């Protein structure tokens, strides 16, 4: 690249760097502020003067959340649902794509069209809701698992990748007498592992953030997910069964508990984020080109 050193160029570069610095600050500062509030004391929260550093540092809000049964239960629910949903949806995608890409498969065109139609048409919110209620899945974990398991884009991307695998590889394994299932998991899976990692991470993040299904189908508080619990805490400013002082007020200021819950909810994503960033970007790019 050729370097330019005209006065207008230098002015532009200065403004450009300034813009991106301001932009990065606009993303980071609200989170740092939220973290500082979650670690501050009651009176500091009342005064509302907390900036980027905790005032009257304490972990009371986090302790409150850690011993709260409802919060802990929704944490477990979320972990469980994320693991189950991610494993099922990625496995189903891979199996479907393998079958669709197989040379002996009869009815490829029909099944493919059947899949594509669901990408463009849908019954909409109300008919889906009525169906799930009619099936008796309301207020069960099934309502949070079954309806969203199929991702047409994953299947299409997987199929395109399997189509491009060397044919000799599959044929030699076939001659050795390997069945379809062992072929799929021993030969094909290792070849599409990077994409699988991307799908696993995408799914895991999406399911970790899931709350709408809970709003629609779940009545039982013990079945809430973390995000839904957070929504409740953010709007009420308190936990379901939080400790109260003799005057019936919460011991921890609503602002503290809100931001502490928010921090705990995003913590897993922040922790894995640096390690999996390359998969995110890989997935986003391939998904756009192939999907």
């Amino acid at each position, binding site marked *: *690249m*050729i370097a*330019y050193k005209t006065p207008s160029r230098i002015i*532009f*570069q200065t403004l*450009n*760097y300034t813009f*991106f610095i301001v*932009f*990065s600050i*606009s*993303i*980071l500062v*609200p989170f740092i502020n939220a973290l500082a509030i979650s670690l501050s004391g009651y009176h500091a929260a009342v005064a*509302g003067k*907390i*900036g980027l550093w905790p005032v009257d540092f304490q972990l009371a809000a986090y302790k409150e959340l850690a011993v709260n049964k409802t919060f802990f239960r929704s944490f477990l629910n979320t972990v469980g649902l994320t693991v189950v949903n991610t494993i099922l949806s990625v496995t*189903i995608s891979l199996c*479907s794509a*393998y*079958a669709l890409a197989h040379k*002996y*498969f009869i009815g490829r065109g029909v099944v493919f069209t059947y*899949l594509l139609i*669901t990408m*463009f*048409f*849908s*019954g*909409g*919110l*109300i*008919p*889906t*809701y*009525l*169906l*799930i209620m009619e099936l008796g899945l309301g207020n069960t974990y099934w309502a949070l698992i*079954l309806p969203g*398991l*199929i991702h047409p884009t994953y*299947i299409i991307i997987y199929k395109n990748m399997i189509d491009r695998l060397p044919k000799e590889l599959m044929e030699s394994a076939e001659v050795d007498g390997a*069945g379809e299932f062992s072929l799929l998991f021993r030969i094909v899976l290792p070849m599409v592992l990077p994409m699988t990692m991307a799908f696993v991470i995408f799914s895991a993040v999406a399911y970790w*953030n899931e709350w709408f299904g809970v709003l629609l189908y779940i009545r039982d508080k013990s079945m809430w997910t973390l995000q839904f619990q957070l*929504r409740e805490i*953010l709007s009420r400013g308190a936990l379901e069964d939080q400790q109260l002082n003799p005057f019936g007020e919460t011991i921890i200021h609503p*602002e503290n508990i*809100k*931001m502490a819950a*928010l921090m705990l*909810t*995003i913590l897993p*994503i*922040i922790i894995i*984020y*640096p390690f999996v960033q390359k998969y995110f*970007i890989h997935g*986003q*790019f391939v998904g*756009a080109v192939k999907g």
Partner: protein
Amino acid sequence: MNEAASVTQPEPALNTRPKKRKVRIKTLISLYILISPMVILLFIFKYIPMYGVIIAFKDFSVYKGILNSDWVGFKHFEYFLTDDKFWQVMRNTLIINCYDIIFGFTAPIVFALLANEIYQKTFKRVMQTISYLPHFLSWIVVSGIFYQFLSPETGMFNRFLGLFGFEPIYFMTEPSIFRGILVFADIWKNVGWSAILYFAVIAGIDSHLYDAAWIDGAGRLRQVFVITLPHMMPMITLLFLLRLASIFGIGFERVFLMQNPLVYDVSDVISTYVYRVGLEQAQYSLTTAIGLMESLLGFILLISSNWLSKRISGMGLY
């Protein structure tokens, strides 16, 4: 298809044929087992609800069920088309979408072009990493952050404005600026992530083109307009088409989680209206009719904008 071709291929030895056919049938059964979860789940959770759309033309009653409810023709369509509330919601949907297209759609393009001018590698990488982050957080978290940060009493932003002598601004409850907040929140959350696609396109441009343009006396700005932007056009057109098709559908989560009763009048869109009236007031048939109209309009838009794009630029989705 491949199967037909492979069946007629001569086999190496005649006596292996029955065995091969047996293997092939066994394979086929395994393949159908592998694909059956997808076929069944789609049938139950996608195709049956598509059939359930007929309740838009019925008076759905929970006691009679979908099949036995009475047909009423276009009654629900007539009802909402003459309802003032519906038109208000429709207006909001279109206005927010126009803002989203004017600002939200162009933001990642500008972002990618500007970021391309950063030559300091480390700075660029750190900035990009930060910019992707909010995309992976839920709208619940983002809305919580916005309400906290922009709060008129304790929010850090209003205290910052106070340093310059400004009165606190009620960002989240002021109807005249709430739509702006919605559009800004979407850009804030997604601009870096959406720009990845444009980064990839820019990275694929042959650098000799820039050298040649420089020798011809084109400055950096002119190079952007004659080289970079034309190369980005196919991607921009494609994404624009997809965006246009969803002009009647706004991401439900963003509006639903950011809004509050004080700003319902300016922020209620079709999807939030369908949720509130449909599920909270149990107007199942009416809101299914609205949903059906929304997806029909979207489909017509997709088809026609694709046709238009093919006529004008020779590029389309299919």
